[in-house]
Structures are given as C-alpha cells and as structure tokens.
C-alpha cells in the first residue's frame, strides 16, 4: 500500500485531487494536511511515498514544509495556480508540478511518474536547487537535468552552451561533458536567459561569460574554442548583451 499526502489549505482543491485519486483507491492510501506545521509533523511520522504539496498554505508556503522536514524519501508533486516564480524554480530543479484547476490527463501523467519513483532520485539535492532559486541570496545557482539514471546537478555557471537537436537539447559544460535532455532548446532558453545566456541562433544558446571573441563576420568563439554562427538578426542584440556584461 502506498501513502499519498495531500498538503492543501483549500478544501475544494483537496477534493479535486481526492476525486482524481479515486480510481487508484486500491493501491493508494491518502492522508490530508491543511497547514504547514501539521504537514511537517505528518511527513516525519507517516513517511508518505507521494506528496502533493500546494505552494500556498495560509501564511506559509510549501517550501517551508520542505525546509522543515529532514526526510525526503518521497515523490514530490507541487500544486500551484499561477505562481510564475515558483514554476521557474520547479523547472530548474526538475520537480514536478500541476496547475490548478488540475487537468485529469496531466494528473495521470504526474502520478504515473511518482509511482515509478523516478521522481525520488536525488530529491534532497533537487530541493536544495529549488530553495536556492527561491531565495533572494546570491548563492551558487544550479540546475537539475534529468538523465537516464536519474538527475545531474550542474552549476549554471559551468554550462558553456546548449544546442538544439529537434526536440532534444545537448548541454555542453566547460569540462567538455555533454548532456542530452528530451526538452526543446526553447525550454532552456526560458530558464537560462536570466542567468547570462543568449540565444545566438535557432540552434544555439550560449553562456555570455564563456565568450572568448566575436568576429564581425558573425562568428563567436567560446573559451573551449567552439566557433558558432550568430544569426544576422541576433547580431546587434548579441553585441549589446555582451557589452552589458
């Protein structure tokens, strides 16, 4: 029997999740908390396998629950309505989330992943990434990227560039390691542009602090001597972005 904890302060939302879990009643036992403190205690004692966690919990947040608990041996699914900042942090840490009102299909997919326990891998570290992205302190920002065996946590400042490969993206670090992720380049562009990255080309997103030189003919050379084409329409904006650095 699997235990699923629903941490949610609004009853109708809890009801919605319970409705969506009804088909799995034989497999999954549910427990509900409505405040952060209750939830922290409940997680420590019950050790749930799956946690549905709302971002908003009265005067506290779901993040307080995570930082208040020591054991993170569960599959985490955040629930949110429209907190853009939080969504970005979820993406950086590759933590799953559902948007309210919850779409039945989305729920099914998320639950399946949780049952597969894929989401449990390196959850502690990923929560670390999540919290660091939410904090206002200037700490080292990381990104979790899903790999075959789980997750890799990379320092964003170590990423030299991302290259599009249809619906996949190759991430190259300064050390020359290549990661391939099944997400379009646009996904990483959305995350990394605010971290000093620039999309120089339909297929290339580069870290501006790795730029070694730029030739007016439209080629940028990175520190690892990779030469990349800067598309004509991006050249002006690229030079501006470099100057701003």
């Amino acid at each position: 029997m699997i235990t699923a904890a629903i941490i949610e302060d609004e009853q109708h939302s809890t009801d919605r999740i319970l409705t969506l879990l009804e088909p799995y009643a034989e497999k999954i036992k549910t427990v509900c908390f409505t405040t952060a403190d209750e939830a922290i205690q409940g997680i420590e004692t019950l050790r749930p396998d799956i946690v549905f966690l709302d971002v908003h919990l009265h005067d506290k947040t779901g993040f307080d629950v995570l930082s208040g608990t020591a054991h993170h041996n569960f599959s985490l699914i955040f629930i949110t309505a429209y907190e853009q900042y939080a969504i970005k942090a979820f993406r950086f840490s590759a933590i799953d989330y559902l948007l309210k009102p919850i779409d039945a299909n989305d729920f099914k997919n998320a639950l399946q992943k949780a049952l597969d326990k894929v989401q449990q891998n390196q959850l502690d570290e990923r929560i670390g990434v999540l919290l660091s992205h939410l904090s206002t302190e200037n700490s080292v920002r990381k990104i979790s990227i899903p790999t075959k065996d789980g997750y890799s946590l990379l320092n964003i400042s170590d990423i030299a560039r991302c290259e599009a490969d249809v619906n996949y993206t190759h991430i190259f670090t300064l050390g020359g390691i290549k990661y391939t992720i099944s997400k379009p380049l646009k996904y990483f562009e959305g995350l990394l542009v605010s971290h000093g990255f620039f999309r120089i080309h339909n297929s290339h997103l580069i870290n501006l602090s790795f730029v070694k030189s730029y030739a007016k003919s439209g080629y940028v050379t990175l520190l690892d001597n990779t030469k990349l084409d800067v598309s004509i329409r991006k050249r002006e904006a690229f030079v501006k972005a470099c100057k701003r650095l």
Partner: protein
Amino acid sequence: MKGGILFFLLLVCFSANTQELQKRLDSLSVLIGTMPADDTATINLRNDYIKQALFSNPADSTLTEFAQQTLETAEKTGYHKGVLFAYERLALISQYSFSNPYKALDYYHKSLSVAENNPGLNSCKWGITGGIATIYYEQEEYDMALRSFKEIILNNKDLELTATANIANVYGAMEKVDSAIYFYKKALQHPQTEQNPAFKANLYSNLSLMYEKAGNAALAVTTAEKSLALINAHGIEFVRPTAYANASMAYLGAGDYVKAEYYARESLQLGELQGNLFLLKSAWGTLADVFAAKNDYKNALQAHIRYSALKDSLNNQNRRVEINRKQMEFDFEKERAFAQTEIARQNSIKKATLLGGLGLLVVSALGFILYKRRRDALEQKKEAEFNALVSDTELKALRAQINPHFIFNSLNSIGDYILKNDNKSAQDYLIKFAKLMRTVLENSEFKEIPLSEELKFIELYLQVETKRLPGKFSYIINVENELDTENILVPPLLLQPFIENSIWHGFREKESQGNIVIDFKRKDNMLLCSVDDDGQGGSNNTTGAGKKSLGIAITENRIKILNKQKNASGKLQILQKLNNTGTRVEVSLPLQNAF
C-alpha cells in the same frame, strides 16, 4: 714719418711749474688737515688739492677715494658747487689716471647736470664742456671736439685761450696742418699767453711740429728754438721733454743731424726719467731717422728696433682704451639685446596669448558644435526610444484589452453548462479554459511570439469553442509547408477576435454546420493570414450597422502601430462574400524571423 709727437693737452687752469705745484700741494694738504671736514671752504680746498695732485702725480691711486669722500661730504652738506667740482675731479681721475673715458664722461655729465640745475653755477659749465671735449678728442671724435671747443670760445672769455690751443691740437691730429698753424698763431697772439711762459713754450713747440709737417723746416727750427729758449729761461720742466722731441724732429727736417741727435737723446733721457713711453717712442724714431740720414745703419737698425718695440707696446696701451670702448659697446649692446629679447619675449607672449585664445575659441566652438550634434543625436535617440516605449505600452494595453473581452465570453459559456446542469462538462471546459487563459496571459506578455505558439493557442481556443458549441462548426487550420513556425514571429492573439466573431456571430443563426478555414501562407516578404467562414454575413462587419466590433478596432490599431514601428505595410481586409454566404478576413504582416 716716424716721430709722431703727442700733444700736450691744455687743461682748464694750467699755470704753475712742477716745483710750484708740489709746494702748493703740500701747503694744501696741511691746510685740509686743520679744517673741519664739512666746511664749504674745506671742500673747495679738497677739490683744489685733487686737481693739483693729479697733475703732480697722475699715478696716485688714493686720489679716487679722496675725491669720493669729498663728493659725499659736499652732498651731505648740500654744497652744490662742491658736488659739481667733486664730480669734475672724479672725471679727470677717470680720464687721466685710469684711461677710462666713458666713466669720465659719466662723471662729467653728472657734474654738468648739477651746473644746469643751479643757475648760480652756470659759468662752471664751460670748464666741464672743455673736459668733455678733450675726451671727444681722445676718442678721435674730432668734429664733436671742435664743436665743443668753438662753443666754449663763444661763451666763456676766460677759457678762450685754452680752447683755441686745443682747437689747434685737434686740427693737428686731423692732419689739417694749415688750420692747426692758424689756431696756434691765434693762441700765441692771445693776451693771456704773455703771462704764461709755460703755455707759450708749449704752443711754440707744437707749432714747430706743424711747420715741420708742412715741410717748412726753417720755420720749424726757429719756432722750436723759441720754445727751447722759454723753457730754459723759466725752467719749465714738464714741457721740456716734448719740446726736445719736437725740436729734434725740426732739426732732422732741416738736415742738422747733430742737433737732431742731441735733442733726441735728451728727450730720450727725460722720457726714461718720466717713464713716458710716447716720448721714448718718438725719440727712438727720430734717432733712427737721424742715424739713417748719417748712414750709421747699425745704430739706425737698433734705434728702429727700440722704436718698433715701443710702438707695439703703445699700440697695446691704445688697445686697452679700445678694449674699454669695446666693453662699453658690448655692455650697451648687451643691454640693447636684452631689451630687444624682452620686447621679443613680450611680443611672443602676446602672440602666444592671442594664438592660444584663438585656438581656445576654435576648440570651444568645435566642442560646442560636436556637443550640440551629440546632444541632438541623443535627443533624437531619446525621442525615438520614448516613442517606442509609448507604442509598446499602447500595444500592451491593446493586448490587455483582449483579455477581459475573451474572459467574459468564456464565462458566459461556463454559465451555459451550469444552466444545463452538466457538471462534468463544466469541469472539463473550465480546465481547458484555464489552460487557454494561462496561454493568453503568458503570450500577451510578449510583443511577438513564434507562429507555433500562436497556432497552439488558436487550436486550444477552437477546441474550447467546439466543446462549448458541439456540432455547430468545424475548423481547419492550414499552414503552408515551407513556413518555419518556430522561427516566424507574429504579434500574439492577432486572429483570435476574427475567429471569435465568426463563431459568435457568423454561425449563431446558421442552421447547418459552419466551417472555418484558417490559413497561413507566405507571399513575397509578407505573411498572409486569413480567417474564412461560411456563416451568415456580417460576422466581421465593419460597414454595416455602423458599430465596429471591439476586436476589429483593436486589431486595426495594433497593425497601425506595428507598421509605424517596423516601417512596414501590414494590412487588414474584411471581405463580405456575395449573398451573405460568409466573411473573409485577411491580415498581411511583414514576414519576421527570430533567427
């Protein structure tokens, strides 16, 4: 002719012979010692003493100090006459003891200015002018010397004799022998001459030289003998050496070699006693001529050697005077040069200041022009940026207007479901609507989004609407194959108002199922988007009942602003099909690629 004889210069108050001089000098110095120093009489005595002492012993170097002290005392007591004569004495000392005519001239001038500033001393002026004239003479400025002496003759009877004698001397020096003889004779006829045998003896001696020069040997000899007779009769020792030398010349000219040799030797002896080089030189010169005339070549040679040596050393002495003059000239030149460089410096400073000022003016003018140009450019840029900001804000506002418009229509649909009591459908619809809303909110953040995003939205929107109006209409979205939807940028939610109009107005009263065809294709450099429905006309009416749909008005404004921003020619066209069989909306946009 070798034996050039020097002129014995006639001084202003010259009378006594050597012995007399020394006697007077001694009594004077005794007198001075017994009298109070600042008394005017003492000062007069001191001045007298200086003059006497100078002619008794020209080499006495203590006289300068003595004269200076006299000057100071006279100045302190305000005794102008004393000051005048003290300056004059200093001039004499400079002239005769130190051979410094310029210094002498300076003192003479000072003395002269004292005379001119005190009317009572005006008569003393001429004595000083005489002193100045002798300096001119020494400096071979003969014309000026003559002018001064002639002026003295005209203005002062007392000095007439000395002046006349000196004019004669000057003409002699100028080799104007006839004029010299004329003035010597005139001086000899002067009444004062009779009372002064020394003066007379000197005049005869000089006259004999002139006769000799004129080639009148006989007259020269007789005149010389007159001079010698006077000297012997009165014991005028200080004229004797010169007179002997001149006499020797006269005898030589007359061919009386014995006498010539005798007087030459005598002159030589006296010259040696006095240490007078001029005398020695002319004596040796005359002797050389005498020996030569006597064919005594050995002695002639030796005399000549002596003569040459003396001449050289005298030339050196002359050179000293010359050097002095040169030094003066040099000092003057230096001062002049300094003044000139100062003037030049001032000029160059002036010039530099002027140039600098001009340069500064040019630079500041240039700077101002550049500054103005830059300022104008900056202002233009600012204005352009501001305009862009304004239009961006306008666009954002317009996009924002779509949201409530769309929201309320959708809320109406949800209301429909609730009315029909279809909770499951209401829930499904709500979730789809939420997704759609999210997309709208996200997309309307951007000025441009990829065409793929816009297509996703249209699809979602049509799904939502189909759900709301099942079986009412079908839709087809055509995208030309070659269009790279990820790369083409379009303004978000551009077609939504027209699709909405087709569904809400075109198909509302239509019995059969309606069809919407949405088309994206490229034509030249434009992206053509069209919404084509077969609903009852007026779905996208702009001409009909007059009231324009809010969506159409907003879209028209957006295109207008986009055209302005991108300098493009985007267009919106709404075509009503014949017989109320549908509406076709065409939007053409400049084709824009992200990369």
